[in-house]
């Protein structure tokens, strides 16, 4: 146990180092003296060897130094604001579409109650969570996700058919196809936008220096015509997608209190290694952060700036009536949600 060839084992040397450091004194180093304990005879034999072996003597010294150094590191304090950020992220994860771990009132996914909850929108859903008690069965969640993908696939097929027979022939049906496709275009995880998205162009992006938040946005709207134009487009189309989706589902038109659908909320992405370059193109990172960012290209604005001192990609959009402006800050790679803000949206 104590010897490995001509020299004591690492374990025996570590035990000797722990013994020399003093088991009682070194308790905070976490040296497991129970596991490493040497009997008196073994200890004497190892000590005798170390006394005449430079290599082992240096090894014992290193082990002792390393353990003593680690003993100086305590448990760090949680950074200010991190706890709130964690709670916020967890609640957002619980309410986000595709994997709503919890819905209020025991509403099963796919039911009218669940759809109604969806219509209540992101922030409203978070508020409702406080009084919720039900949980969506896992199976139902995934059934719902597949239903969404199926709808998207149907929309793509419909668009393909439209390409053959002529878009104009779709008539009133095009609204339904556009509605479903518009909301689901990125649900399939495709790196390529749908035909509709391609036609509409990319989500407008604006670089900005320094920290960014909603207050800064309000200031910039007064001084940056390009940003103001994009904001105006988002503002004017704030109810478009909710109406289209509502129509696609066959439900009633949105009430005046609707603030948007849950599936319009950018979401914290799955924690998975990226395929391809982690520093890939901005659009790929945007889709990683917000898989359901508008395929119409005019409802969101992306600001490349910093958020609370960190480089960030900020996704901003306007929803609802009265209009509310939402901000989601992600790391530039789209992997991590840094924070969220919302406030009343000034008319453009």
């Amino acid at each position, binding site marked *: 146990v104590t010897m490995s060839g001509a020299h004591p084992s690492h374990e025996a040397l570590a035990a000797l180092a722990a013994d020399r450091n003093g088991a009682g004194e070194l308790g905070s180093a976490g040296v497991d003296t129970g596991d490493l304990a040497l009997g008196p005879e073994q200890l004497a034999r190892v000590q005798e060897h170390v006394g005449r072996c430079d290599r082992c003597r240096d090894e014992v010294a290193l082990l002792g130094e*390393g353990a003593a150094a680690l*003993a*100086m590191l305590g448990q760090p304090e949680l950074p200010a604001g991190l706890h709130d950020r964690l709670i916020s992220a967890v609640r957002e994860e619980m309410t986000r579409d595709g994997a709503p771990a919890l819905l209020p009132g025991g509403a099963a996914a796919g039911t009218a109650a669940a759809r109604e909850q969806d219509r209540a929108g992101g922030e409203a859903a978070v508020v409702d969570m406080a009084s919720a008690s039900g949980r969506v069965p896992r199976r139902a969640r995934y059934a719902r996700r597949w239903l969404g993908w199926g709808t998207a696939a149907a929309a793509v097929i419909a668009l393909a058919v439209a390409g053959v027979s002529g878009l104009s022939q779709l008539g009133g049906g095009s609204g339904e196809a556009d509605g479903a496709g518009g909301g689901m275009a990125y649900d399939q995880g495709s790196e390529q936008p749908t035909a509709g998205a391609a036609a509409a162009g990319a989500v407008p992006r604006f670089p900005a220096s320094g920290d960014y938040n909603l207050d800064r946005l309000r200031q910039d709207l007064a001084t940056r015509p390009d940003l103001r134009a994009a904001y105006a487009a988002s503002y004017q189309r704030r109810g478009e997608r909710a109406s289209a989706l509502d129509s696609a589902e066959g439900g009633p038109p949105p009430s005046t209190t609707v603030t948007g659908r849950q599936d319009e909320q950018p979401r914290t992405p799955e924690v998975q290694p990226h395929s391809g370059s*982690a520093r890939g193109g901005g659009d790929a990172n945007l889709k990683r952060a917000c898989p359901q960012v508008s395929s119409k290209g005019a409802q969101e604005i992306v600001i490349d700036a910093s958020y609370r001192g960190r480089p960030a990609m900020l996704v901003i959009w306007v929803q609802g009536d009265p209009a509310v402006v939402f901000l989601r800050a992600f790391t530039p*790679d789209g992997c991590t949600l840094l924070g969220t803000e919302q406030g009343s949206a000034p008319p453009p």
Partner: protein
Amino acid sequence: VNAEPSDEQLLARHLAGDQEAFSELVTRHDRRVYSVCLRVLGNTEDAADATQDAFLALLRRASSFEGGSAFSTWLYRVAVNAALDLARRRARVRTVPLEADATPITLASADPGDEVVTAVTVQVALARVAEEFRVALVLCDLCRLPYAEAAAILDVAVGTVKSRVFRGRAALARELRVLDPRARQSDAEAGAGPGRPGTQSGGPGATGGPAVAAGRLSALPGTAAALAASDEQAASQRTEE
């Protein structure tokens, strides 16, 4: 008697639909998870991101927890994986100057001679230790988990964990010597110092106790030098990339 619910009970409540149960788990363990992530990643921003990733992963996989192992084992495993995943995603483990770090590093040592600089230097050195050794050190020497539990977390044999811990300690000490070669030189000049009687000069007696080691570490150059070395390493890594 209002006994605190166990972690497993809180998880069960969460799965049963209790809206606050998971938040309670977050509150209970956020500092522990952050600590693991910080020690593995070496900087506060990445540690905060990894902590968030870890709790979201726990949330997503809550229903897969079957109680075959302790909740804490599962928690540490997810935390370590989140930290390593983030490190790989961001391609390298970085260290950031303490001046830009609002989070104070807590010292465990009671020696009043120890300074924050010492802990920073240790953290810098720890970030230079190979990943597999560093993780073992974090779990066993910092989180004070038994080798068997660390082995379960890392899904390796107990002997492998021990080997990684021992090699990690030695590697850490070597990094500390690199960060402060003067300390090593003065150490040699001082001979055995207050070590045990009968030890040879420069021998194991030189590390005769934590106070001695702490004294040596306290003699390390200031933060600037340590961080300059760190920056050089980061620049070197970037060049290699």
